[in-house]
């Protein structure tokens, strides 16, 4: 136990130098936790938003439906199978019918997806209530991005054209009853929401749906013929992949930060060994073995990681807590540039694993970085060290 005792004594004895190093390293340490926490918070919020606005507890897709292939929509509709209908009737699921269409706002042609949904549903955080109370022939709900793209506003009327189940094209005017503000682009861009009964009638698809969204926390029904269950794991995969991709990008930042901090420690260690070579010689003369001197210098370097955690905790905890409570603002609508549902304010989420993992990582790096120059001591002759020479 003598090495830790001496190392702590040396580090504390070095005073301001020790704390300056710790302060530099703590910046890398806190920044990593903060940035990673931001991505964790980002991941959690995007997932929560998508679950609330689109995925619920998972979705049943009618056979042949592929959201990435619009050509499948022509045949992707069927009456929900009995087990699904039971859940719909019990308010534990809501059907959505998806039909391809075109709108003509201001004389322009805009291909869209017409999505039919129950106006009274409450499973998804879409303000569908307006569809049931407007009194318009074809009431429609659009998101703010769609409204912007189409130059649409509430109470505007726009012509919609679609093809029904029999292959016949038809066109009518629909009225925008509300422009909703949502951060979920996937229920907004290129989409027009109608009451499902209206869309079923327009498309000649009575009682039919393309997908059935289940309530959150509801267990999936056993296999439903003609329908495939898409779990949240499957539905959120793309989002997770995007966040993961962004996290990998952020790792480059961490690597640079850690590299700079490691360089500072390496430099400090090299200088320390150079400056303290006479001290090393004295220690050897007093009976400290080379192994113990190497251990001592390595331990001193590793203590930088521990002290950085202490210094980082002092200024980092209040800072991280502030962002966790007040969030970090990216400015209005900046979230859209990320390509996925993201609010204008992000709230970092710090887990014990993140803090512990970063602490261990910083400690390991400082230990390794400290050991490398300390190895030089192993080649040092006591007589040379006493005379202040490095061999």
């Amino acid at each position, binding site marked *: 136990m003598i090495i830790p005792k001496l190392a702590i004594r*040396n580090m504390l004895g070095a005073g301001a130098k020790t704390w300056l190093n710790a302060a530099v390293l703590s910046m890398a340490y806190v920044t990593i936790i903060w940035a990673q926490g931001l991505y964790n918070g980002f991941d959690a919020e995007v997932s929560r938003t998508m679950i609330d606005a689109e995925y619920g507890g998972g979705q049943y897709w009618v056979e042949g439906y592929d959201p990435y292939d619009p050509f499948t929509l022509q045949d992707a509709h069927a009456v929900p199978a009995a087990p699904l209908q039971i859940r719909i009737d019990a308010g534990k699921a809501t059907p959505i019918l998806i039909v391809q269409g075109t709108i003509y706002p201001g004389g322009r042609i805009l291909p869209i997806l017409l999505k039919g949904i129950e106006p009274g549903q409450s499973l998804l955080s879409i303000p569908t209530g307006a569809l049931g109370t407007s009194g318009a022939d074809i009431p429609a709900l659009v998101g703010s991005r769609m409204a912007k793209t189409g130059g649409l506003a509430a109470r505007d009327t726009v012509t919609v054209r679609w093809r029904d189940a029999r292959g016949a094209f038809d066109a009518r005017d629909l009225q925008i009853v509300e422009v909703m503000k949502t951060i979920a682009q996937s229920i907004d861009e290129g989409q027009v929401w109608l009451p499902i009964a209206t869309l079923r009638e327009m498309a000649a698809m009575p009682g039919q749906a393309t997908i059935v969204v289940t309530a959150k926390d509801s267990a999936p029904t056993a296999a439903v013929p003609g329908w495939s269950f898409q779990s949240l794991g499957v539905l959120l995969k793309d989002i997770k992949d995007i966040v993961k991709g962004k996290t990998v990008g952020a790792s480059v930042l961490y690597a640079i930060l850690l590299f700079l901090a490691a360089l500072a420690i390496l430099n400090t260690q090299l200088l320390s060994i150079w400056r303290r070579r006479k001290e090393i010689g*004295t220690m050897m003369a007093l009976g400290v073995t080379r192994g113990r001197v190497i251990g001592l210098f390595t331990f001193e370097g590793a203590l930088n990681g521990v002290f950085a955690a202490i210094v980082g905790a002092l200024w980092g905890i209040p800072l991280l807590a502030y962002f966790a409570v007040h969030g970090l603002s990216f400015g209005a609508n900046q979230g859209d540039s990320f390509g996925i549902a993201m609010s204008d304010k992000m709230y970092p989420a710090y887990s014990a694993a993140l803090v512990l993992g970063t602490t261990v990582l910083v400690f390991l790096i400082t230990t390794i970085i400290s050991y490398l120059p300390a190895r030089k001591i192993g080649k040092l002759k006591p007589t040379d060290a006493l005379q202040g020479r490095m061999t």
Partner: protein
Amino acid sequence: MENGTIIRTTDLVKIYPMGEQSITALQDVNLTFGRGEFAGLVGPSGSGKTTLLNILGSLDAPTRGSAEVLGLRVEALPHKKAAELRNRHIGFIFQTFNLLPVYTVFENVEFPLLLLGMATAARRKAVMDALEWVHLADRAKSRPNQLSGGQSQRVAIARAVVKKPELVLADEPTANLDAENSHHILHTMENINRELRTTFLFSTHDDKVIGHLRRKITLVDGRVAKDEPGAGR
């Protein structure tokens, strides 16, 4: 090794290679030192005093010949054993004091005992006793940069003798001290030598030290030129 003999060198040679040339620092040195001696290696700079002291302190190895210290052949000692010999049995006093700068006086003196793994209470008593010997008990909490040269060297003496070693090797211990401090620390070392029967071996060319030696060995160009009784009592 005969009873009472703690150091014996036999045909000791130390040669330092310097590129294609070499420098012979010690040539056929044959010396014996007994327990309780207060002896000194004297001679001009480059005569091999410090080299001999380093070999006897197991800090360096001879090129040829043998150096036996407390029954151990220095030239055959592995690093760990040499460190153990230094830690347990040899105390060093350096010209430039070599106190560990971030430690207090107490911690500097305590250092060798920490390495020995001595229990806290015994360690504390030994350190305070050693500081009493050198009259610095009241400066236990001071740092080296708060001490004068004489005080620093007294701390170094306390550190060298705190473990009550058989042998203390002092390399030009008064070179950085004024006359008053030199006499003071020499008296201190003489007292310790008498009380603990610790063998003191100096390397010096300082007349003040030479005047205290009971045995004076003159080295010239790495050879023992004279081995005679000193003026010390």
